[in-house]
């Protein structure tokens, strides 16, 4: 029994957008960035058991037990009203999972899986769990063929990557902006650690994909795109780059007033990268 625990926002048994092939994706709750444009804002906070969500739940799936929020997944009808009611962008439906429980899920769905991806939130905030999970997968005869990937904002420090990388096959790393002020506006933090992480991962051969979110008027400008080109060149022009487009799905608050990123703009940015010799550029299949 591996008892390391994680706070899990959601688990998907089928995903084709979180690494190569079909992946079991574990979305961990909690993030160290606070991006106004986040597509999954309910994964940012950690529940403080204030109970404000209980009244919003018409299915009576939420209650306070001994001062803590208790969630009944059977009663829940997935209306998501509790997420709207939460004042701190947390998710009262988040549940605790042990490594053993995740391994059981992986075993159950094994014939369908190319691998497992931990995402978030920011997955690396629950570093001990992720290391324990990946170690357990690598040392399990039946599961050892599953690849282990992380979706991260790169805020993790160098010494912690050292703990994680020996059991990690690849990382999808988001860089939100290349210029300090833009990065601070978009995330609330500086980008030096994210850039450092990209270098570390690339040097270790584990940077599966560098992701860049195009937001009209914020990150689709010349300065940002030049910053992206210059940075990718320092890593190597063969680096796999995914351009994502800011859309309104899931977004809350002021960022809903931001323009959506149109397909034409993404294509122009992709062309610009290719013209600069960066050929492994990928763009979204769907705009919503």
């Amino acid at each position, binding site marked *: 029994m591996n008892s390391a625990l994680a706070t899990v926002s959601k688990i*998907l048994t089928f995903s*084709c957008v979180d690494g*190569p092939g079909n992946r079991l994706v574990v979305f961990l709750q909690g993030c160290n960035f606070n991006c106004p444009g986040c597509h999954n804002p309910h994964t940012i906070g950690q529940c403080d058991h204030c109970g404000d969500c209980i009244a919003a739940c018409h299915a009576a799936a939420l209650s306070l037990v001994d001062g803590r929020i208790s969630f009944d997944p059977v009663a829940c009808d997935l209306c*998501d009203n509790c997420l709207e009611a939460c004042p701190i962008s947390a998710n009262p*439906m988040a549940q605790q999972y042990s490594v053993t429980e995740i391994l059981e899920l992986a075993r159950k769905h094994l014939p369908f899986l190319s691998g497992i991806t931990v995402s978030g939130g920011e997955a690396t905030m629950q570093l001990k769990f992720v290391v324990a999970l990946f170690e357990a997968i690598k040392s399990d005869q039946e599961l050892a063929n599953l690849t282990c990937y992380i979706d991260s904002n790169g805020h993790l420090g160098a010494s912690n990557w050292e703990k994680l990388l020996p059991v990690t096959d690849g990382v999808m790393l988001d860089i939100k902006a290349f210029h300090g002020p833009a990065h601070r506006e978009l995330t609330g933090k500086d980008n030096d650690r994210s850039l450092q992480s990209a270098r570390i991962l690339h040097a270790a051969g584990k940077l599966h994909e560098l992701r860049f979110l195009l937001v009209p008027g914020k990150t689709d400008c010349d300065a940002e795109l030049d910053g992206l080109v210059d940075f990718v060149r320092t890593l190597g022009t063969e680096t796999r780059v995914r351009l994502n487009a800011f859309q309104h799905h899931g977004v809350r608050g002021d960022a809903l007033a931001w323009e959506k990123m149109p397909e034409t703009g993404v294509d122009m940015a992709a062309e610009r990268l290719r013209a600069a010799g960066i050929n492994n550029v990928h763009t979204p299949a769907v705009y919503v």
Partner: protein
Amino acid sequence: MQETLRNLHNIVTDKTLSPSQKSHYLALEAENMLPYPALDAETQEALDQRVICDMYEGHAPYKPRYVLPDYSIVLRNGSEYLELPVPVTLDEAINTLMIAYHHVPSVTGMPVYIGQLDDLLLPFCDGVSDDDLYQKIKLFWRYLDRTLPDAFMHANIGPTDNRVARSILRVDAELKQTAPNLTFLYDPKISTDQILAIATNNIVECSKPHIANHPLHADTFDERGYGIVSCYNALPLAGGASTLTRVNLKEVALRSTDEADFFARSLPYYLNLNFRLAEHRIDYLFNESNFFNSFLVEEGWIEQDRFTAMYGIFAMAEAVNTLQKKEGRAGQYGFDEAANELGHKISRVLSEAVDRRPMENVWRDHAMLHAQAGLSDDVEATPGVRIPYGTEPDPVMHIEALAAHHQYYSSGISEILTLDETIKNNPEALLQLCKGAFSCGFREFTANVASNDLVRVTGFMIRLSDVEKFRKQEGSRTNTTVLGAEAADVTGILERKPRVVSHELSPGYSQ
């Protein structure tokens, strides 16, 4: 009579049907002026109430529902009746097949099976360059779609990785035609990963081919082989299916007081009547129609004793949900483990019933169970054992919920997995899904990618743009669009929910 004449007049003067489509409907009307094979009162009543159903095959079965000729006979021997010499070149072989197809009857009047094309054509490909092969297949494919425009028409390829199969997959992805439909027979011990990858990439391009679990099917049939035809029916090669009669399980459940009554009384009662319906129709075909007095039999394309009876069922989802309700249980089919297990139990009971009942003039003396993929006028009755449109869980859960049914449906069962377009950036995920499905015991793997113009409706391919055109009364060149338009209107089939496969994390458990 007045009404019949009015009906005929409507067909003749229809604005949207072509002359040959009109002939087909007129012939059906004429057949249906004949008396139905004499049924006993109970069977007649169940048929009238549509608890059991003859698929509207017509009153006087004068041809089997599905015919799967062994085309290797005509390629090896030529045909005396058709005055065809033995083909020597690839052009001659393709030309021989093109002629042969026009002499193969079926329920639609067009061939539902056009052969295991790679096995048939490979012997003629020595010395033919890849480019020539591609060009010839392309013309062949265009010919098939334009002259036999019926999406029930089905070609098979595989399980080997070979030049003909690769050319067909290349052409099929390029032309994106409704016809022919296509199945790749997959065998993990024989097929290469490369050709399975080409096949799954094609699914992303055009929702074809359909992929069949070859080892499972091969074990079900014999040395002579089998073919996948029409809506994913697995049938004996050099034979086929005389008839398909089906039981509406929802109607049976509605006529049961509770689960115990369903298993003890109503299900056995209606299963028996569905056997009788099939027997009456088979008797007519074999003893009265003179169908087998044919050059197809004389020259060995088909054998009279290789025709099975397809024993169809549908509306499993509604049947289970009806019984759950009667038992005061909330769990829904497709989502709740107990509900799913009730479904599996029904399938097992059906399979045992079919194995117990000897039938005359039927291959191996027993019918074969079939999860029937629906008719366009089925209302609130989901095809086969599928999960109702628009309510399906994610593809992995979907497959896991239904996999246990597949062992029972020896003459075919298919689920349609709808995937959203994000899969286009990651076809490896589709490949993995297919392998996972087969390792769970799926007999067939079929997927739609949400934005494709070409999609499966119930089991056959239609173009969404054709449906739109037909609705605007422009008519359609392909026969199945008529059915497709009807299916889309009546059964809400285009509402099939594209599955969210994306990063867009919508929260909540067990979605």
